């Protein structure tokens, strides 16, 4: 059984539908003690980093226990950012600190040079639009269980303004004004900045990789 953590920011419906499509039953635990029976945990999420504050010390302890039992966790979007130390979006709200680093606003750090062929720039009218919305290339940077079987150059669907830094935990990176971590993995803890539940076959494959770890 997969537990989908609901902290009120949810794309729970979409993630739940994708899991149902993959024949993986999911529940939405109402209290941290419900996590004890979960084979895998998914922390979805959209919106502001601040919403993660809804998950207090008792939830954090239950997630730590789940990981200590050797069971996998997947954070999606803000759920992935939550795995880090925190985000400049909500400085007062620490993350789970399972991975070092702080998430920050996407900024245009790349000079407008090579990508200026006709219509082919990330800049529209000379500037970078933030949020980053749409399909972008996931560059696999390291072997991982999470991105197993994903082709080089596969595209996935993003919608976000803040992003995680490229660190040792990064297994897939994406460029938009700057390079950021699109997929991270440390042992059984993984996260994706994009929405696998909205990334068609590529996304379903990634969810299947997670389910395999959880079985």
């Amino acid at each position, binding site marked *: 059984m997969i537990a989908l953590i609901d902290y009120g920011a949810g794309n729970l*419906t979409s993630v739940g539908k994708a899991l149902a499509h993959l024949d993986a039953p999911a529940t939405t635990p109402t209290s941290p003690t419900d996590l004890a029976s979960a084979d895998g945990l998914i922390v979805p999420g959209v919106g502001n980093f601040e919403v993660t504050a809804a998950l207090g010390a008792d939830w954090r302890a239950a997630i730590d226990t789940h990981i200590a039992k050797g069971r996998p966790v997947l954070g999606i979007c803000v759920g992935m950012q939550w795995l880090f130390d925190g985000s400049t979006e909500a400085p007062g709200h620490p993350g789970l600190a399972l991975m070092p680093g702080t998430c920050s606003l996407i900024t245009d750090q790349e000079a407008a040079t090579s990508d200026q062929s006709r219509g082919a720039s990330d800049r529209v009218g000379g500037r970078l639009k933030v949020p980053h919305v749409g399909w972008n290339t996931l560059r696999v940077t390291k072997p991982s269980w999470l991105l197993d079987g994903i082709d080089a150059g596969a595209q996935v669907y993003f919608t976000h303004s803040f992003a995680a830094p490229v660190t040792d935990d990064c297994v897939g990176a994406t460029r938009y004004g700057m390079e950021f971590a699109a997929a991270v993995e440390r042992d059984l803890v993984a996260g994706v900045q994009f929405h696998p539940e909205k990334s068609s076959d590529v996304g379903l494959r990634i969810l299947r990789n997670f389910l395999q770890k959880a079985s």
Partner: protein
Amino acid sequence: MLSKRIIACLDVRDGSVVKGVNFEGLRHAGDPAELATRYNREGIDEVVILDITATIEKRKALADTIQAVAREIFLPLCVGGGIRGEEHAEAAIEAGADKVGINTAALAQPELITSLAKRYGSQAVIVAIDAKREAGRFKIYVRSGQQGTERDAVEWAQEAADRGAGEILLTSIDQDGTKTGFDCELTSAVSSAVPIPVIASGGAGTFDHFVDVFTTGQADAALAASIFHYSERAVADLKTHLRTHDIPVRIT
């Protein structure tokens, strides 16, 4: 590189896709889920369900249709038409929509944009604008393009973005249904004025029209309906065409 998105619009009435659909190859004529599945297979990037009768007849978008489509495809799904207030948006999102398009209601009560953005995140709030050229400016029409207003499309798009809209779905009333091309001037005027993505709509007739709207029009995404209905190769062929013009697209 971020791809330019190609979005298919399903004009839905009473649970069926209507308006110039070639139903060849579909088992159930006009079935939205089946058509969406076909588009997904062909490589469409996103799907919009537009309940075309909803605004006029004050009906909400059909939850059953949304549910059926959301069960079959794992792509961003936007629902518009008849979203008059928070309860309609809630029903659409609970049925499986990722984004809701608000048009008439957003102009009538702009605070709806902010309250929906607070509740679901800006990425879920698309402000749809129907604009028509009048006296040298782009004037907004509401109620499915039937009622003129005094509002300017560029100014309203900026206000909508300030209020928390995540994207603008911009339809040219002049071009809609003509198949003579998008209104690139309108699209460019809005796209260069707002920090959020602009989806161009209205007028797609040839693949070159998409090239134009992504270059001259500075669009982030382009939406069409009938051009995709007629041929099972249309989406893939369009993307190949765009790629030969150096426009980044997702190839599946």
